[in-house]
């Protein structure tokens, strides 16, 4: 009784009651808003499938994945995306060859070696590098890197897979550095102290103790860097020449990728053809198939990287 009495005296009670409705409404709205991210992911994928699946049924997955004849506007149309898939993988893998040693080395330096001042200098540098619009990087590829590639390898045209890969490597760098650095920092200090106490040098500690302990975070960093490279559009569009020929060459009887050939990525194809294609045509819907491929690829990469990162943080 006493409690109820004091509650009644407390004249906020009435206000709180009417507030409850208000509060509930706000909470409901916020919950819906929280769900927005899920809705977007489902909507984008659902939309790509809704437009793409009928085209996939009509054309057949086999043609998409195994033919390199992409001629959607020809009277005898072909929808083989093999060259683009090969091109996308070529530039992205080569970008990693550039960015992984560079990025993981930089991260190791920042987390384990660098004095505060150098770190304060390099970290914003990477942030600024990450902020440069991809179209500007593509322009630099066009006017600076492509002529250099042409001169160095004696080509008439420097717009090659190599040119695109070099630029993508630079673009994947900030992602790889920042996530690898977090991975190094997450290694408990006891590990380092124990190794040092056992007589290891700092270098030995770093290479044989800290680096293996940070491994899963570094793997996640590499995956996310790869995802970034696969999805990049403007840079490869401007740097790789966009030829649809399969970029392979014979080397002692084996077919190997030719990095001095022009390639065209999946992303570039959507950018080039998306504007002119008549809405609703088979060609239009086949672009959604390419979009769905990219979506699935980046989704899987992000999903697995997320699991790896979660394990890295929860483990030990």
């Amino acid at each position: 009784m006493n409690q109820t009495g004091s509650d009644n005296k407390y004249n906020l009670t009435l206000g709180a009651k009417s507030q409850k409705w208000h509060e509930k409404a706000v909470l409901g709205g916020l919950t819906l808003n929280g769900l927005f991210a899920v809705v977007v992911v489902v909507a984008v994928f659902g939309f790509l499938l809704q437009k793409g699946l009928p085209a996939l049924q009509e054309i057949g997955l086999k043609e998409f994945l195994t033919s390199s004849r992409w001629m959607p506007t020809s009277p005898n149309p072909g929808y083989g995306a093999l060259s683009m898939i090969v091109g996308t993988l070529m530039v992205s893998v080569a970008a990693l060859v550039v960015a992984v040693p560079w990025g993981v080395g930089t991260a190791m330096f920042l987390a384990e070696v660098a004095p505060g001042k150098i770190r304060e200098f390099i970290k914003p540098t990477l942030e600024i590098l990450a902020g440069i619009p991809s179209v500007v990087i593509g322009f630099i590829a066009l006017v600076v890197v492509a002529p250099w590639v042409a001169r160095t390898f004696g080509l008439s045209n420097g717009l090659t897979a190599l040119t695109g890969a070099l630029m993508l490597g630079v673009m994947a760098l900030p992602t790889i550095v920042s996530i690898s650095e977090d991975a190094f920092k997450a290694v408990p200090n006891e590990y380092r102290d124990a190794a040092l106490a056992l007589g290891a040098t700092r270098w030995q500690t770093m290479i044989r103790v800290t680096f293996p302990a940070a491994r899963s975070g570094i793997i996640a960093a590499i995956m996310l860097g790869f995802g970034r490279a696969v999805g990049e559009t403007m840079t490869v569009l401007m740097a790789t020449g966009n030829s649809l020929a399969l970029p392979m060459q014979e080397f002692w009887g084996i077919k190997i990728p030719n990095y001095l050939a022009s390639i065209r990525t999946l992303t570039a194809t959507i950018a080039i053809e998306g504007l002119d294609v008549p809405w609703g045509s088979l060609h239009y819907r086949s672009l959604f198939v390419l979009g769905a491929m990219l979506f699935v690829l980046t989704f899987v990469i992000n999903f697995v990287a997320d699991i790896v990162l979660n394990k890295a943080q929860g483990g030990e």
Partner: protein
Amino acid sequence: MVKPEQLRNGKKLHISEMLGYGILLLFALSSVAVLVYFIGSIASRGLSSISWTFLTEVPRVGMTEGGIMPAIVGTIYVSLLTLAVSVPLGVGSAIYINEFSSQGLFNRIIRLSIRNIAGVPSIVFGLFGLGLFVAGMKLGQSLLAAAFTLGLMTYPVIVTTAEEALKAVPQSFRDGALALGATRWQAVRHQVLPAAIPGMATGAILGLGRAAGETAPILLTGAAYFLPRLPQGVTDQFMALPYHLFILATQHNQISVVRPLAYGTALVLLALVLLLNGAAIAIRLYYRKSKQW
């Protein structure tokens, strides 16, 4: 007593180790070199194209003369409209995730979705925007369709930075308000949010920089090849700096003639984006230093 410092530095560095440290230093410094080289190569060749006329006039004679004013204004329009879409949605999501949702599976799914949106290729958003906003909702290629598309793209940036800002507000702010009889929403609305505003502003500026520099999504949803006037409303097409640079660099029929204009456009775009990112970094540093708690 042996200090840890002596243990680390007491031993002579092996030559191979010195080499190792040298390589790491080289890796780290080369990113600085690349950045300087990138900015330098644009600035050194673009600076001579920048003039008052270049910044304030419309393109003339098939874009071989005149300025880039409509592209600058178009980029500002579309970026601000983008923020109008992404900031309310992003801040609301961040408030829900950080202040109200329980840390369960539901929360994890939301976070995973946000990270995945950030990972979806920009051209896929462009394609989605083309299919849904331009063709499906019949907005046509317009400022509005482009802003919706870019809004979805910049949403993860806004959520992530807004969440960081909310996390930085001490728990005592919430506890104090709740102890005084405020409801959870009142505590958030009147105590937590005001304290988080500077951090959220940083996120909004970062989002602005991101929207201003994106090309692939607006390429399919609203950027005009050539439009020597300002957009009159949100259903108009617009010129934009990144798309204009792309055209001058690769699509124009007199590429060598317009090369100086391309350099100038690249420099203006680069300066705009770097200025926005720099402002965001500066605000963050300022508030980190002057924070009262």
